[in-house]
């Protein structure tokens, strides 16, 4: 489904990604972790072309993202993305947030879009908040709506960039629950997160990054029970033992 081949990326002189190669199969859930600044967000943004890469090749469902004249808007509309800070449109109600791209990109009619939106809002437990504005909701609620907004585009895969790290501790669970459900329904997912409980529970593979490179890329249980690299061991000891 997603294949990443030897990509490298620079911000002017600074190399953020170094020769990364991996792939995500249909229905697979892959967790990406690693220290701050290791390039996790950058990697995931490259997958739907939000950031250009200088070297290497990324394909999604057969279409090359990194091709010179790739139709990125069409491609992006087929991949959902959820951000750390939710990025709901603050000037639109919850419903409008969900309908905008459905109408403007997929060309759905208002009623179709609303129907789809309502269904998804119910699914993330937010059916009662259709008319509210993002600022009237808690972080956990906003993030669930952001997930629904992505799902409304009927994506073939979902990307998550630290979806819970901006949340108060008691709200993390409500968001993770939605994600777990999604994974169990067979959605292809690539998730940057430090929630190791989530990773253990639903991830098929864990990718560990450091300084722009993919250091480990292994099945979940193998990774946790027996990390190979020193860096990964050290990282796990820090985030698991407190």
């Amino acid at each position: 489904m997603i294949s990443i081949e030897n990509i490298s990326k620079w911000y002017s002189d600074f190399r953020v990604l170094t020769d990364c190669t991996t792939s995500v199969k249909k229905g697979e859930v892959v967790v990406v972790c690693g220290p701050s600044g290791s390039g996790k967000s950058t990697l995931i943004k490259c997958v739907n072309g939000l950031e250009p890469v200088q070297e290497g090749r990324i394909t999604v469902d057969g279409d090359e993202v990194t091709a010179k004249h790739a139709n990125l808007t069409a491609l992006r509309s087929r991949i959902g993305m959820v951000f750390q800070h939710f990025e709901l449109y603050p000037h639109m109600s919850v419903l409008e947030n969900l309908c905008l791209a459905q109408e403007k990109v997929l060309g759905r009619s208002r009623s179709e879009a609303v129907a789809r939106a309502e269904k998804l809002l119910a699914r993330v437990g937010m059916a009662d908040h259709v008319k509210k504005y993002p600022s009237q909701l808690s972080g956990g609620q906003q993030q669930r709506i952001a997930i629904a907004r992505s799902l409304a585009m009927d994506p073939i895969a979902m990307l998550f960039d630290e979806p819970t790290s901006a949340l108060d501790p008691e709200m993390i669970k409500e968001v993770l629950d939605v994600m777990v459900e999604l994974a169990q329904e067979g959605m292809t997912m690539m998730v940057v997160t430090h929630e190791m409980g989530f990773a253990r529970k639903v991830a098929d593979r864990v990718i560990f990054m450091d300084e722009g490179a993919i250091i480990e890329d292994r099945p979940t249980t193998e990774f946790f029970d027996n990390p190979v690299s020193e860096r990964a061991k050290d990282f796990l000891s820090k985030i698991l033992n407190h």
Partner: protein
Amino acid sequence: MADFDFNVIWSSLPFLWQGLQLSLWLTFLSIIGGIVLGTLLALARLSGILPLSLIAATYVNLIRSVPLILVIFWFFFLVPLAIGRPIGSFYSALIAFVLFEAAYYSEIMRAGIQSVKQGQVHAGQSTGLNYWQIQRYVVLPQAFRNMIPILVTQGIILFQDTSLVFVVSLRDFMTASSIVARTEGRLVEMYLFAAVVYFVICFSGSMLVRSLKSRMST
């Protein structure tokens, strides 16, 4: 201390009111024109098209380093000469103000557009919206909304600036007050009165800004 005669204000009210109308009208039209032209300049500057953004930047920086009075002189005396036909003193002043204020409004709009977080653009992109849709539905509405208080503040400054048409004798409120002050020899009364009127209008404006700000922050 001289004896004050505040009757002079009362008897010249209709004349002063005419002046105030001109001031307000000039302000209103200049704000509209300034915002429209300013937004275009801001978009040009952020367009990433080098010649376009260079021209816009040069224009904005040039205008912003020259006093308004000098700009008024330019337009009042020289533009009719340059375009070869008179446009009337009100329109000369209006054009001067629009072109002058557009430089300031463009800086405000540029800051407004840049104040919309990159994440919002990414969110739009990742659902497949194209560049113009993102500007139209995501960035500009937020930029305008974020900038409303500053736009209004600039409007107040613009209103104060209109008093400078005094230098070319256009009959705004300031000029009207001056005429009465000088012909009647009632300087203290008239200038204090002018100050009070300007203060009341501008202060109300800044209260509006304050309430807009507090409403926006909740």
